[in-house]
């Protein structure tokens, strides 16, 4: 009531604008159950754009199932990896499912659900043998746990915006090896195209992959956590993991 009086005191025009905005917001409050799922769309098999132009991959399948179990209507949007956290915080979408490992540093800015993918092993992929991984030039995707790790090893770090570009950097000789999630690199190693193969030992990094959320969204976090727990206990999460990452994958 108070607010309306205040508005009337100013100009008529302002009142109309305010009324229009209120009408818009009132309408959207009813549709509050639409959850916008943010992903990168360039990190197979976690998430990628398929031949039809839709978001596809492990996280699409898992996310849709989680939304179904939590009774949410979800839509998928893609965002560049580099700005994926700032745009979550500013509200462009409500969750991040983009192969994002749970780390203490990220927890300062955003919240995570429990992990839906066990702590990942990261690996080096190279064309040449005998790369001295401590002193070589290593490509990694920008703002990843892998790029942070490479920076600490003393190797020369080359950062790229997308995972695809890190692979190309090794192919055309700009980098000696690429360091990334083993599951992202596995298809390239299997195809053995241009002689790409794993070198060195797997490096365990991070606390597993979880859904990133704004810290102000505990309700959504609760719903998704429950759904993940349910999928862990009935084995359906393990089935999805095996389907997308093969039999060698670590399961729950």
């Amino acid at each position, binding site marked *: 009531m108070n*607010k309306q009086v205040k508005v009337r005191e100013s100009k008529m025009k*302002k009142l109309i*604008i*305010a009324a229009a*905005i*209120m009408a*818009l*917001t009132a309408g*959207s409050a009813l*549709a*509050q159950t*639409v959850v*916008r799922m943010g992903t990168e769309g*360039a990190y*197979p*098999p976690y998430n*990628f*754009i*398929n*031949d*039809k*132009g*839709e978001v*596809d*991959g492990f996280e699409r399948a898992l996310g849709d199932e989680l939304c179904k179990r939590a009774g949410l209507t979800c*839509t998928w*949007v893609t965002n*560049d990896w580099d700005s994926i956290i*700032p745009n979550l*915080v*500013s*509200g*462009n*979408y*409500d969750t991040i499912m983009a192969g994002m490992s749970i780390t203490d540093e990220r927890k300062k800015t955003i919240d995570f659900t429990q992990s839906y993918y066990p702590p990942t092993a990261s690996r080096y992929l190279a064309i040449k043998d005998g790369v001295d991984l401590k002193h070589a030039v290593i490509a990694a995707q920008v703002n990843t746990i892998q790029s942070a790790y490479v920076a600490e090893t003393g190797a020369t770090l080359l950062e790229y915006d*997308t995972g*695809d570009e890190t*692979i*190309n950097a090794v*192919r055309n000789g700009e980098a000696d090896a690429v360091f990334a999630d083993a599951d992202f690199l596995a*298809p*390239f190693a299997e*195809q053995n*195209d241009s002689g790409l193969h794993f070198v060195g030992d797997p490096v365990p990094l991070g606390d597993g992959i979880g859904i990133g959320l704004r810290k102000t969204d505990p309700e959504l976090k609760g719903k998704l956590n429950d759904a993940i727990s349910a999928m862990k206990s009935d084995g359906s999460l393990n089935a999805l993991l095996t389907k997308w990452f093969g039999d060698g994958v670590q399961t729950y």
Partner: protein
Amino acid sequence: MFSFCSEPDTLDSLRWFACYLTTGVEFNLYLSLGTVLALLAITAPAALVFGFLGAMASRSHFLPLSLLGKIYTAMVRGVPDIVYFLFFVIALDQGLEWTKHQIVCPDWTEPIRQGANFIVCPQAKIPLSTSPQWVHEVYNFFLAVFTFAIVFGAFAANVLSGAMAAVPRGQIETAEAYGMTHRQAFWRILVPQMWLYALPGLSNLWMILIKATPLLFLLGVEDIVYWARELGGTKAAKFSAYPHPDWRIWYFLGLLVFYLLFTKVSEYVLTRINRRLARGQSISGNMA
């Protein structure tokens, strides 16, 4: 798309390409060509309007107005386009959200700027996070169009005020001698004649505008550069029925040809228009 596309592995290369180029994901590239054309179709007239207003303002005898016009046109001089684009889009978006925030969330106590983040109340987001995806895309597109129009409007204002100054002084004096008012002389004598002087500059601007359209990519709009990069990237056999190695060079080559053809056609059309305008003018028609 075609009936023979069900098993791409078995096709010969011609039919393979016919199938590959008609998958749903490739259509995003073709649609984004439409985005670029729509951008040009809206930006060009809008920038011309901004330019005309800017040129008129800077010629004004009313000091604040002429200062405003001069500042606007001077903007084009020392700052690179990319800086404008990055600044305007963020400033415009945050400005709109801040204003809406003040109206719909007067009781909000949290600071809007938290470190590097700009956080308004959820009801003040533009568009609302609950809006469908196309609303978000259209909003981003129009932010980009508006920014293009402001920046290219400033260029156009420069060209148009130069063109207005180039119309021989004698023409205006004659008009005034016939008893026309300032305004009448401006609209009846100056404006119709200035186009001939403005056209070479405006043609040049149009060319620059065409070539500036990939800046959309920088603004987060999924334009042809975005899709060329996305589609050209390596596709593994596991995740696509049409696996291919890194083909970005071919996609970018396609873009190169597209832009070259587009500017070539524009050049031809603009030369014709110029020749047409020069007909019957007091100066010779070899301006272009």
